[in-house]
């Protein structure tokens, strides 16, 4: 489940701006069906068409190694440049969201752990009662008062 909170009331927060971007890229008008953009963004490789699978995998895991040939192959089988662009952005955004979700989840877990530590009752092991100084006996108190009075 995404850890991007509902930020309808704060469009300038980073989370809100990311949600706007995600909506534009995955659900906005485009030359590829929205469903296909969602599939590649989430790298559901078993649902991705055969010719796209290698490209999506490269983009997601090591985009630096992508090649002219990979893009040319997609154009050759009938994808337009505009469609390849949309799919490229969708895969890239999916990789970004994976980091966003993982990082925000770690922050949430850190907060939960901190709250748990704060609410755990402190159990003090039972200690033998420390010896108390003996209460002064009434007759010794009286002797003390008598000494002060005589001074």
């Amino acid at each position, binding site marked *: 489940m995404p850890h991007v909170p509902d930020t309808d009331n704060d469009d300038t927060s980073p989370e809100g701006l990311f949600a706007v971007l995600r909506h534009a890229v995955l659900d906005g008008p485009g030359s590829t069906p929205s469903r296909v953009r969602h599939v590649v963004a989430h790298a559901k490789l078993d649902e991705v068409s055969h010719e796209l699978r290698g490209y999506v995998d490269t*983009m997601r895991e090591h985009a630096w190694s*992508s090649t*002219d040939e990979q*893009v040319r192959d997609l154009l050759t089988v009938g994808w337009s440049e505009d469609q390849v662009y*949309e799919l490229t952005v969708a895969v890239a955004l999916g990789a970004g969201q994976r*980091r966003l979700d993982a*990082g925000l989840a*770690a922050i949430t877990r850190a907060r939960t752990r901190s709250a748990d530590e704060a609410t755990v009752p402190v159990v003090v092991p039972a200690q033998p009662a420390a010896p108390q100084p003996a209460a002064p006996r009434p007759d010794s108190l009286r002797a003390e008062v008598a000494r002060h009075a005589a001074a």
Partner: protein
Amino acid sequence: MRLPSLSRSWRFSDRVKLKMIRLASGRPPADILKILHYRREFFGEPFSAWVHQVLRGPSEWSIAERELMATFVSHLNQCRFCEGSHGAIVDATLGRELTAAVLADWRTAPLRPALRAALALLEPLTLRPGDVGPELVEAAYAAGVTEQGARDVVHICAIFCTINRVADAVDFAIPDDKGFQGDAYQLLKRGYAIG
């Protein structure tokens, strides 16, 4: 660029704007600008709004520190274009020696503890996001990072794990040092929003 039509289909006002940039700088606009202005509602506008808020908006991290994180993530992703672009900003603000020291080994680079803790979080989040647990966040808190500061770090990682992939897939041309420095000056002056 591998998708040449992305360099042609801009709205009229953007064509004028990019032409002005070419005239002012004496060289073609960077490929990133061409992409951001291509069907700008699809990606360029919402993406640059997010980037501008995270890299230039209010934060406990200085602009230079956020640019250093951007450079670091791009370096881990082996994206030469983004590493060079943002590294040039760090060179201009924190110094070339610090950029080199961080990219050589962030563990020994002369950094304040909070910034080092941010890089310690960024490394696995970029390379192995499934391995990131609360321990690294707690270590960052112990080094003085606030929860909002940690959120900013996570957003920087997400931004550059997105744009690094686009840059490499489309195969952005790599400017020379002078080109990177000119772009760095503009990014420091104007930020990222394309308006």
